[in-house]
Each structure stands twice: as structure tokens, then as C-alpha cells.
């Protein structure tokens, strides 16, 4: 994966990530399909365009960092990192395998390019704040990116962090909520309705933008606007579909963690290939 400029190119990156993520899932029989599919376009924008990283030097101190606080979307990030060149694509077959380096939830000590171990929800925001504060103290111009789940925003720690980040004017922190409207037990509106998350973060003093989370161009423009904004942490609410682009997951409730048959996953992979070809045709 190189660095891309055009929106259509980024779309091909996203569809490539989607395809490779589904190929990863083919080896497991079950997994966090829904939340992996909904975050694909954002990962394409970050690693295909906006983040400063060195795949050949994952621990480069001046890199931008991503804290994937909704750590269950690890499979999508692993696909992204493999495509970017952080590790060989063959390693993707280790997803959830005994002794493998790609656990269900992200682990910074196992996988090259993973910046933080996550999965116990609510904790990533505080770690991202710490990294952003530390970078500011160190005089580094690195940006810290953070991806939260909408269900994750049930956690009180998210709001402790939200208060802190705006009070300390952490404008080197750019956060996203993957607002896919579902959590494990069903629709967020039914489990614990968070209502308008954008309004909530705005009330907490953040620079908030709402975008279509499956529109790479819109996400990229929002990230660029966030980078230019001064004096506030940035929040981009991604309006997404949980399971987006996966034939057996999209529109299914619940689809947080799913089992699927070999036929289902092969059909999803074939469909993803067609999506990729269609996206490539538009470049």
C-alpha cells in the first residue's frame, strides 16, 4: 500500500482491506465480523493517506499512533497493516490460532504495527490522551489517532477522557466513533441509547464532525480539517453500517461476533472481490 491522494484510489484500498479481512476470517469459522467491516474505510484513509508511519520501522518514535480502542476490530487492522507492509500477508493466517501473533483483540507485544493492547473497552481514550500529552511535552508533532466503538461509549472512562482532553486542549488527538448502531446484544438504541454522540462530544468541548463512515473522501477531508483545527481535540463521528460489505453480516442483527459456514465466507469473499474490481474500474 502506497500513499494515495484521490478518493477513488482510497476506495480501492478500503475494498482491498475488506477482502483481505474476510480472507482472514475464512481460517477461523467465527469472529468479530461486524465491527471489522464497519471500520475498513477509516483504516484505508489513515494508512493509505493520512498517517505518518514507517512499515519497515514499526517502532519509529516520531510515527503517528493509532489506538484501536474497539480492539475487537483487530482483524481489519491486521489486514491493513499487512497490506501496508508491516508484516507478510502470510502471517494473516495466524488470526486466533493457537500461539499465533494475531489475537482476537489487539496486542502491541505480539503484532508489528499495533500501537496499543486494547479490548477492555473504555481504556483506549486515556492511553491515547497520555500519548498525545507526552508527545506535546516532548515537542513532537506526531498525531495520536483513536477509534472508539459507539457501544464502547457506554463506558464511563470514555467520558472521563472526553473531559480531560478538551480541558487540556489536546489538538494533536484525532478520535473517531464507529457509529455502527449495534453492540453485542443488539441495537445500541435498545441496549443503552447514547442518542446523538456528536452532540455529547461537542458538549464536552470537542471539535466534532459527522461523516459518512463508508465515504473515504469524506473521512479524509474530515481528518484534514481536524489536523488544521487548533486548541481542541477532534472527534469524527463515522456513520456506518455494522457488517458493511459482507454478504452474511450486513443488515443482520446482532452481528458483533458471528459464526459462519465455509460457503458463507466464500460467498462473502467472492462478493468482496467484485467490489474491489468495481472500485478499481473507477480509478
Amino acid at each position, binding site marked *: 500500500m502506497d500513499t494515495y491522494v484521490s478518493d477513488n484510489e482510497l476506495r480501492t484500498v478500503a475494498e482491498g482491506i475488506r477482502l483481505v479481512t474476510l480472507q482472514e476470517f475464512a481460517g477461523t469459522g467465527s469472529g468479530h465480523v461486524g465491527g471489522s467491516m464497519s471500520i475498513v474505510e477509516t483504516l484505508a484513509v489513515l494508512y493509505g493517506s493520512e498517517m505518518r508511519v514507517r512499515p519497515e520501522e514499526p517502532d519509529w*518514535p516520531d510515527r503517528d*499512533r493509532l*489506538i484501536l480502542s474497539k480492539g475487537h476490530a483487530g482483524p481489519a487492522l491486521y489486514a491493513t497493516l499487512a497490506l501496508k507492509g508491516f508484516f507478510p500477508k502470510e502471517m494473516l493466517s495466524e488470526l486466533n490460532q493457537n500461539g499465533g501473533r494475531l489475537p482476537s483483540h489487539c*496486542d*502491541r*507485544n505480539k503484532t508489528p504495527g499495533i*500501537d*496499543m*493492547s486494547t*479490548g*477492555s473497552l*473504555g*481504556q*483506549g*481514550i*486515556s*492511553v*491515547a*490522551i*497520555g*500519548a*498525545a*500529552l*507526552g*508527545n506535546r*511535552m*516532548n515537542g*513532537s508533532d*506526531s498525531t495520536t489517532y483513536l477509534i472508539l466503538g459507539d457501544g464502547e461509549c457506554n463506558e*464511563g*472512562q470514555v467520558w*472521563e*477522557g472526553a*473531559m*480531560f482532553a478538551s480541558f487540556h486542549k489536546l489538538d494533536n488527538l484525532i478520535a473517531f466513533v464507529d457509529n455502527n448502531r449495534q453492540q453485542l446484544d443488539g441495537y445500541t438504541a435498545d441496549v443503552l441509547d447514547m442518542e446523538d454522540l456528536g452532540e455529547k462530544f461537542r458538549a464536552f468541548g470537542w471539535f466534532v464532525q459527522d461523516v459518512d463512515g463508508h465515504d473515504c473522501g469524506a473521512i479524509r477531508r474530515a481528518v484534514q480539517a481536524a489536523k488544521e483545527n487548533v486548541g481542541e481535540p477532534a472527534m469524527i463521528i463515522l456513520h456506518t453500517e455494522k457488517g458493511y460489505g459482507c454478504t452474511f453480516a450486513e443488515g443482520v442483527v446482532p452481528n458483533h461476533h458471528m459464526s459462519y459456514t465455509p460457503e458463507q465466507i466464500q460467498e462473502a469473499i467472492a462478493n468482496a472481490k467484485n467490489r474491489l474490481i468495481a472500485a478499481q474500474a473507477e480509478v
Partner: protein
Amino acid sequence: MFTVRDSFETSPVLMRDAMCKALTDMAADDDRIVALDADLIGSSGLKPFFKLYPERAIQCGIAEANMIGIAAGLSLVGKVPYAHSFGCFSSRRVCDQIMISAAYAKLNVRIIGSDPGITAAKNGGTHMPFEDMGVLRSIPQITLIEPTDPVMTDYIVRKLANEYGVYYIRLVRKETAAIYEEGSTFEIGKGNVLQDGRDVTIFASGIMVAEAMKAATVLKNGGVSVRVVDMFTWKPIDAELVKKCAADTGCFVTAENHNIYGGLGSAIAEAASKSRPVPIEMVGVDDRFGQVGSVDYLREQYNLGAMDIIEAAKRAIARK
């Protein structure tokens, strides 16, 4: 090497002041050092640090979970954080943040939990941690330290600036007995034999060390030869020393300002059972909650005095 004082008067230096002085001294030459607090700098003694190094002092407000996560994140970019709250709120309240954001992620975080056990005194049961070390002891690879006096506190706080891992420092905030001479050095993970003896070993920690020394003197006058060990590191426990003391003295008393379930007594019993089991009598809080009171009153309430150690030593010896 350490030198034990001849007598154990109350130290003129408060523990919190020793901690803050060590931290500010280290911070002068090391811009990695960061202090965090959760609306308690008026209690923790960190005010001088916050005044001297405002750009490296982080007031987190009453949000301890966020504070631990921030400390972990700071260490991601090379900072060396020391985060303080009262012991209850820097252990049981943030157990999962310490477990996942700090320990599981293998980051570099020091946590100071103040007012251990009965030293929480007038703050009472909600603020009286008899469980902090027990809660944290099951976290893999964490190091748990209870400094004994200001000399040790100074040494440990400085030493930890150049170590890597997750450390919990259980710190009395105010007065303690002065046990060690200035200039003493210590080894994390190794118990200090303060006094040798052959009939029984007393493993003590924190405010119980001075009580153990008092008890040893009384027992000695009664013809009992007592070894006293300051077991200031609860994890990793000094298993070699436990084994040696079992062989040399044949029975133990453990003395801790903590619940005996999950605390120092448990740690020593585990170590002894793996090497050389001996009778063990545990002086500590017997599975009770805290309450309001003066330290002296609470010491009596929870049976944490020298007399309790003396009686326990007699029982342990009788069981040999």
C-alpha cells in the same frame, strides 16, 4: 547495603515529603519523569513537584481510571510516570486499567497508593485499604513494594526512575518510625534481615516492622531468639529467603497492615509451601472492613500491635 538504627524514634521527615523530594530531585536531571494525581496533591505531598515542574505535572481530577490510562499512554512515548491516589483508589478502583493498559500492554508505570490500612485513620472504612496489595498481587509481573521509612522511600522512588515495568508503592503519607540509617541501599525483591535469631522468623512490612522489632526485644528478654525480616517487597516475594528462614528457624510469624487473605502472609505461605512448609501464624486484619479511628485505636481493634506478634510467635514455636 543497609544499616539498621539503634533505636526507632519517629522520623522527623514525613513519608510523602521524602517521596516528593526524591521525585523532584530526579526530575531536575530527567525530563522523562512525570507526576500525576487525582485531586489529591494537597494530601499526597506532590505540591512541590507541581510547582517546580508544572509542564510535567498532570492534575487528572477525580478520575482515577483515566489517570492510570494516561500514565500508560505517557510511557508509550517514553515518559516515566508516577501516579498517585489513596491506596483504595489506586488499586481496587483501577484494577482493570492497571491489568490491561499497564501490565498486559507491558508499559512502564509507577503507582503510589497512600494511606495503607489503619494509617487511613479518620477517613474510615471507605478509604482504608486492607486489600490493595491482595487485589494487585494476582496481576502478572507487577512489583509490589511497601517502603518502611523515609530513607527507604527516598531510595525506592529514585531507583524506580530507571527501572521498567509496573510498580505499586504502598506509602504511608505521614510519620513512621525511622528504621534505617541515611545512605542505606536496598534491593527490590530481597527481604532485609534486621536482626538474626534461630527460634522463629517474623516477616513484617510497613508500620509492622517497628512492632516486630519491639516484639523481638520482649521475646529475647524471655529467652526466645527471634529473626526479624523487613519484607518490603511483597511481589516478587523473596522465596530464597523464605526457604532459608524455614530451614534456620522452623516457624514463622507474618505481620502486615492488610487483610491476611491475599496479602504478605499469603505470599509467604505460598513460598514456604513450595519449598519447606513450617508452622505460620499470621498477624494482620482477619477479613474485616476498615473503620474510623486513630491509628493507636485501630491497631488495638485489628490486633496489629507488638503484643499480638509476641503471642503469635509463642503459638508458632509451640506448633514446631
